[in-house]
């Protein structure tokens, strides 16, 4: 199963409510993925203050991070430690392995933080302090593990490029083959998770110069299996489904926001849903909304 929720705000006056809305949406898809959860939030001034580079880490405490990275500020969010510093993203990412060799980087960017953990998603949202988060975009995932272990590393979103995030409902059949191909091209992996391969593939295509639409079309050509994907970047919000489209997806759109969820009940919590245009994304069609 797995549950997906995502919210891309168009109306700035809703930004103070981003975390509260995302928490309510996540609470509606708990049964779809009760073993772990994760969110990515774009534009929260506490997690990603303007002008500072942000990395989200697993395997370290905030105190360890602040000692090891002088000048950095670390924020605890369940299993995740979010660290921001007055550096470039490249410099902060380069400093982490040397200063914190045990840490796993689960997200990086200038405007985005990734928070992950294991256990019931409602408890996790509380532990993340999600209801108090503000910003312009957020994605969330509740996981029912099928392809790899229940660990914070295995929880979604998978964020492997600056500001990029992928959440996945389904399972890729040929991920081992594609992982080998990407490894041969120098791409490094953090886990054996099939969804990470999707995220690495997209990041690789974007790096090679493809835009998000093209990267997702290439993913449809190359990947075999079941997938409904919600992919976000520093300015975009995109949805794509496989040709069979058995993994559910609904999009709702108003002048104030675009939202995507596995089930309608997660959209019903949004303000103005009664006037939204609601539709199911067509199989193998790429939908992208830009800020």
């Amino acid at each position, binding site marked *: 199963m797995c549950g997906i929720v995502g919210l891309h705000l168009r109306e700035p006056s809703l930004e103070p409510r981003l975390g509260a809305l995302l928490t309510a949406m996540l609470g509606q898809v708990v049964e779809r993925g009760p073993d772990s959860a994760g969110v990515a939030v774009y534009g929260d001034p506490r997690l990603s203050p303007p002008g500072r580079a942000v990395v989200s880490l697993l395997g370290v405490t905030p105190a360890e991070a602040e000692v090891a990275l002088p000048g950095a500020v670390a924020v605890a969010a369940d299993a995740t430690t979010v660290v921001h510093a007055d550096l470039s993203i490249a410099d902060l990412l380069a400093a982490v392995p040397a200063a914190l060799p045990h840490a796993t980087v689960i997200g990086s960017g200038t405007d985005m933080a990734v928070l992950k953990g294991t256990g019931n998603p409602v408890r996790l949202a509380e532990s993340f302090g999600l209801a108090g988060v503000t910003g312009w975009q957020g994605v969330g995932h509740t996981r029912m593990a099928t392809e790899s272990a229940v660990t914070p590393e295995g929880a979604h979103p998978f964020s492997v490029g600056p500001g990029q995030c992928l959440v996945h409902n389904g399972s890729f059949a040929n991920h081992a083959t594609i992982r080998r191909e990407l490894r041969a091209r120098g791409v490094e992996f953090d886990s054996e998770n099939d969804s990470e391969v999707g995220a690495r593939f997209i990041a690789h295509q974007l790096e090679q110069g493809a835009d998000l639409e093209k990267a997702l079309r290439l993913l449809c050509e190359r990947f075999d299996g079941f997938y409904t994907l919600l992919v976000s970047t520093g300015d975009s919000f995109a949805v794509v489904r496989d040709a069979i489209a058995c993994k*559910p997806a609904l999009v709702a759109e108003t002048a104030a926001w675009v939202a995507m969820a596995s*089930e*309608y009940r997660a959209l019903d919590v949004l303000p103005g849903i009664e006037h939204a245009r609601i539709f199911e994304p067509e199989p193998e069609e790429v939908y992208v909304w830009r800020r």
Partner: protein
Amino acid sequence: MATLIDLAESPVRALNQALHSTAATSWRVRNPRGAHAVACGIREDHTVDVEGHVGYYCAGMNQHATVTVHGNAGTGVAENMMSGTVRVRGNASQSAGATAHGGLLVIDGDASARCGISMKGVDIVVGGSVGHMSAFMGQAGRLVVCGDAGDALGDSLYEARIYVRGTVKSLGADCVEKEMRDEHLAELAELLKAAERDEDPADFRRYGSARQLYHFKVDNTTAY
């Protein structure tokens, strides 16, 4: 006067238990808000009006009741229905009417993928269009589509009959267009009337099974 059950106050289980009773024959359900299994397993001749969007398996296993959803329905609306009528005023998600044995399912809007998958005797009338693989492995019953049909319509069809007014993106394995004879025009007219629709049966085309997949062909032995 209809008995009102508000799902903002009562859980779905309480609603479905109440609908198993004969305390009333007319029911209104408020605030479904995408809940699953609303009005499932009814065995009485009730009339149920659901005021809003429902989640998965609404009116599943229905017998005798008339259930109207004044909104959209999620996956598997009226799945395994045996008799009665289920009407969706909005759109329906995938697998509408899956494996249903009898009764009438009417979807005023569109139905998405696999509408009528493995249908076993139900009649389904869709006012809009249906998604890919509709009537997949359909065994009996009739599927009427007033709009268009997606890819692989009627794939691996047994004996269900399909009528489509608009375009068919592609036919599935063993599904072929068939001649529209008088008896087909007559049954289509009846189905459209039952669904309270005013399309002209003469505008539809009929599709059915070529019956080439019924038996194993010895020529294919080497394929396995």
